[in-house]
C-alpha cells in the first residue's frame, strides 16, 4: 500500500501538505471574516470587503516579481549557473502573473464601487498594468525554443531588463499624472479607518496568500525539475536510438 503511494508521489511532501492545509484554513478564515464578520467601512460601505483579497494579492505579486529578479540576478552572477535559480525565477513569475491578474480584476471591481469607474489612470494602477504585460512577455520568452541553458540565460537577461524598465515606466506615469490637473484619484485603502478585526483580517489575507504562493511555487518548481529530468532521461533513450540508426548502415 505504502509502496503504491510512494510510486505515485509527485511534487508533494509532508511540508507542502502542511503548508497547503494551513493555506486552506487561513483562507477560509479570511473569506468568512472578510465577507461576514468584519464591519462595513464608514466611507466605502460594503465594498471595503474586496480589500481583503485585493491588497494581499497585489503584495504577493510584487513579492513574486522581486523574487524573480533576485533569482535571475543570482543565476547570472553565480559561477555555476545553477538551474535551480532559473526554475525558481520561472515558477515565481508564473505565480506572480496570476496574482497580478487577480489584483487587476479585483482592483477594477473595487474601483467601480469606490470611484464609479473600472479604471483610473493612476500611476500605481498604470505601472501595475505594465508590470503585468511585461511579465507576460517574460513568460513568452521562457517558452522560446532552445536548450535549458539558453532559456535560462535569455530569460534572466529579460528579467534584468524588466527591472530597468519598471522604474522608468513608473516615473514617467507619475510625471504624466502630476502635470495633469483634474483627475485626482482617491487612494482606496488610504482613507479606510480600520478596526482591529479588519486589520487582523487583512493581515490574515497576507498570510494566506503567502502560504498559497509558497505552496504553488514549490510545486511548480518541482514540476519544472521533473520535466527537465524527464527530458534528460528521454535524451539517454534518444542517444541510444540515434546510435543504432548509425550502426544499421
Amino acid at each position: 500500500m505504502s509502496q503504491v503511494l510512494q510510486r505515485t508521489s509527485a511534487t508533494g511532501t509532508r511540508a507542502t501538505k502542511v503548508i497547503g492545509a494551513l493555506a486552506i484554513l487561513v483562507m477560509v478564515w479570511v473569506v468568512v471574516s472578510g465577507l461576514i464578520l468584519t464591519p462595513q467601512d464608514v466611507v466605502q460601505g460594503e465594498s471595503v470587503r474586496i480589500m481583503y483579497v485585493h491588497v494581499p494579492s497585489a503584495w504577493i505579486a510584487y513579492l513574486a516579481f522581486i523574487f524573480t529578479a533576485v533569482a535571475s540576478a543570482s543565476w547570472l552572477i553565480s559561477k555555476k549557473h545553477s538551474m535551480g535559480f532559473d526554475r525558481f525565477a520561472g515558477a515565481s513569475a508564473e505565480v506572480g502573473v496570476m496574482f497580478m491578474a487577480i489584483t487587476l480584476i479585483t482592483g477594477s471591481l473595487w474601483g467601480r464601487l469606490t470611484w464609479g469607474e473600472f479604471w483610473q489612470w493612476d500611476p500605481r494602477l498604470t505601472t501595475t498594468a505594465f508590470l503585468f504585460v511585461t511579465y507576460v512577455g517574460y513568460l513568452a520568452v521562457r517558452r522560446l525554443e532552445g536548450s535549458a541553458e539558453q532559456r535560462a540565460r535569455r530569460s534572466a537577461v529579460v528579467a534584468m531588463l524588466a527591472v530597468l524598465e519598471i522604474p522608468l515606466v513608473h516615473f514617467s506615469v507619475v510625471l504624466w499624472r502630476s502635470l495633469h490637473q483634474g483627475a485626482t484619484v482617491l487612494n482606496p485603502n488610504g482613507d479606510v479607518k480600520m478596526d482591529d478585526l479588519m486589520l487582523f483580517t487583512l493581515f490574515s489575507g497576507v498570510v494566506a496568500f503567502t502560504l498559497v504562493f509558497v505552496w504553488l511555487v514549490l510545486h511548480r518548481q518541482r514540476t519544472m525539475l521533473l520535466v527537465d529530468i524527464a527530458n534528460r532521461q528521454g535524451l539517454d533513450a534518444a542517444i541510444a536510438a540515434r546510435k543504432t540508426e548509425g550502426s544499421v548502415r
Partner: protein
Amino acid sequence: MIVSFSDVVVVYDNFPALAGATFEISRGEIVLLQGPNGAGKTTLLRTCAGLLPIVRGSANVLSCDLTSDRFSVRKKVGLLGHANGLFHDLTVEENMSFWSRLIGTSDQDVKTAMQIMGLSDRLCTTRVANLSAGQKRRCALATLIVRRAQLWLLDEPHAGLDTHGRDELDKTLRAAREAGATVMFASHEIDRARNLATRSLMVAGGLVTES
C-alpha cells in the same frame, strides 16, 4: 591535435544530432566527412565552430575547450554553412568589403580572393540577389578565403559550383593546407572529395567512425 572530440553529444530540442562523437584530427589534414543526410555532418561542423553548446562529453578545437568556452575558438575558424551569409541587397563587392572591414583584411587580399573564385568585374557590381546559386557560393567562399582561418569548416562546398569552380576550390584548400591550415569538409561529390581529402571520416547516426 587540432580537433579532438570525445563522446560529444549535441542536441536540438532533445534530438541528439551528435550522439557521442569521438575522433581526432591533426594539423594539416584535409578531412572528408561522409555520410547520409541527417547523419550529423552539419552539426559536427557547427559544433567545431563553437556555435552549438555541448551537452555531454568534451571537445577541444585549436586548443580551445569548447565545453567551457565556445567563443574564443571562433576567431580562428572559418565556416561555410548551407547558408552563404551574404546580404542579398548588396553587390558582391559591397559584401566583400563589409566582411573585410570587420575582419581587418587588406584590399589586396580581397581582390585576390575574388580572383581566385572567378568573380569578375562585371559580377562585382551585381547584386547578390541576382546571382545564380553557384555564383553566390563562389562569393561566400571568397569571404571565407579572406578570413585566413586556421581551421576551415566547409559544409558541402562543392554543391552548386561548376567544374571550374570546384577545381579552383580544391586548389584553394590545398594551398591553405600548404600554409598550415587544417580543413574539414562534408561533400556528396565522393570521387572529387576522396581525391582532395587526406583522410575521410564516416558520420552516421550522430557517431563518427574511420572509413
